[in-house]
């Protein structure tokens, strides 16, 4: 593994752990979603970075090149990005509805209000 490979892995792992930490540690519903998004983005990098072959070109067959990078991870991640966008849109929509119903987007306050209502 060359040093760029190691660097990309380090970034991937950092983003992954940072995202997951935000999801667990933050109380604010929007911030949690931001963390979730970072966590998902780290996975995109996990797929995309190893797809780059040093010296490889786009997979268009030509006599001048003999090394080609695989295009498949990019296609997969395009799909994963769509899934991520859908998740984020739905998550934000639910947060809007929660705000309308509770008047807050802090998780502990929501729990408090449910307790008071009882």
């Amino acid at each position, binding site marked *: 593994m060359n040093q760029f490979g190691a660097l990309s892995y380090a970034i991937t792992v950092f983003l992954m752990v940072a995202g997951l930490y935000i999801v667990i540690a933050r109380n604010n519903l929007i911030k949690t979603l931001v963390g979730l998004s970072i966590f998902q983005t780290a996975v995109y990098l996990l797929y995309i970075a190893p797809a780059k072959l040093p010296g490889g070109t786009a997979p268009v067959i030509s006599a001048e090149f003999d090394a080609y990078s695989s295009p498949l991870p990019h296609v997969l991640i395009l799909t994963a990005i769509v899934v991520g966008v859908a998740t984020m849109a739905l998550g934000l929509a639910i947060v809007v509805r929660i705000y309308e119903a*509770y008047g807050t987007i802090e998780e502990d306050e929501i729990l408090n209000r449910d307790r008071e209502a009882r």
Partner: protein
Amino acid sequence: MTLSAHFPVLQVVVPLVSAPLAVLARRATAAYAIVMFASWIAFGLAIALTMQVRSEGVVSYPIGNWPPPWGIEYRIDALSSFVLLLVSAVAAVVLPYCRRSIEHEVPREQHYLFYSMFALCLAGLLGIAATGDAFNAFVFIEISALASYVLIALGRDRKALVASYQYLILGTIGATFFVIGIGMLYLMTGTLNLADMSERLAATSDLRPVLTAAAFITVGMSLKLALFPLHQWLPNAYTYAPSAVSAFIAATGTKVSIYVLMRFYFSVFGAGLVFELAVGEVLLVLSLAAMFIASAIAVVQSDFKKLLAYSSVAQVGYITLGLSLESVSGLTASIVHLVNHGMTKAGLFMLVGGAVLVTGGSGMDRLAGLRRTMPLTSFGIVLGGLGLIGIPGTAGFISKWQLVLAAMERQEWWLVFAIVASSLLAVAYVWRFVEVAYFREPSNPADRRREAPATMLVPAVMVIAASIYFGLDSSLTLGGAATAADFLLGTSR
């Protein structure tokens, strides 16, 4: 190619296409008719595919005629046809029930969207079972999950929104863990086709990334299948979702996740590799914890739907317990309990949905004296409850007995004792209902006898009757499960 050659893909495409059609229809009745039609076709296709698998063995379908492993392959074998049958049967029974049920719970202008989401959820769940491609499985997992978040958020109580949000966060973490695992497998093998992946993994000498992938997939799917203690999303989601949604998702959502885990353990990694990783021991401990702790929590609930939800966590424990035993009989117990419990819980949630509609809530105090006001519903719930306990004559008994046999086969008598002891806890939580419904007076003595509408009561009673029928004649369920378990372990390394 004749039409029957396309059954594997039609199984998924028919419900998938019905979702946008339901949106275009806009009128609730039209949307209902479209989705209903699609789900009955899906049920018919599942039956046809099961027959096909029985007579010809594994059915492989290359999407777009691209041969696997390059193209996406749909692969139906003994296990996946079994799961397809469960999911589509539950959908076909729950849909007629939906109509009256959601009229009371969902605003009328959203009905067509409800049916559309239901169809998407169904398509996703069927897709997971049908596909033979790892990334395709991830996409279907997300399709069904996103649709189920919406369905849960449609509940009347504002707590449904919070429950749906929590499920969204935990579900997405689970799915992302799963896709990390797949990414590692893909980097190691360069293929996404499960059968091809399995062959190439056998030739891999560098085991570390493979074991990491196994760990990621196990944790991710455990979140999705609500393995104790990763079940935090489940009780609220089941409690506050509309009744029809609780019934559908409780019977299918977690079960399909267990299917994915089985598929990866036995068809991709191979039993030898997975159980070398001490997965069996971990699953065993967590399953026992689920059986006892979740059952104990269920006993003290004051809301009947929440009680059933915790009971689901406990029952998932029995399924994973069978999986952890690493034997054909254990796996058979797992697979048969998948179906038996799915059926019983669907019936129970449907009956409770009827009670909620009439009494206005699922709190235990609301159900007081239910025997007087809704005798048929109460009797059905008791029968379903007996199935949860595992009384002989119910479907629950068949799977528990199979589980006990698997434990005896390993000479682990304490495990047999644990299975029986945890069933006593199930007696305690079912008794809670019996006590409230049969021995307490109705809170309003003037209430007259009033059952749920027939379109809700009939499907619910049918499901409960089926759970009794499969308790008396288990050749179809137990036989199918045994074939699937044999097939899985027979082809596994």
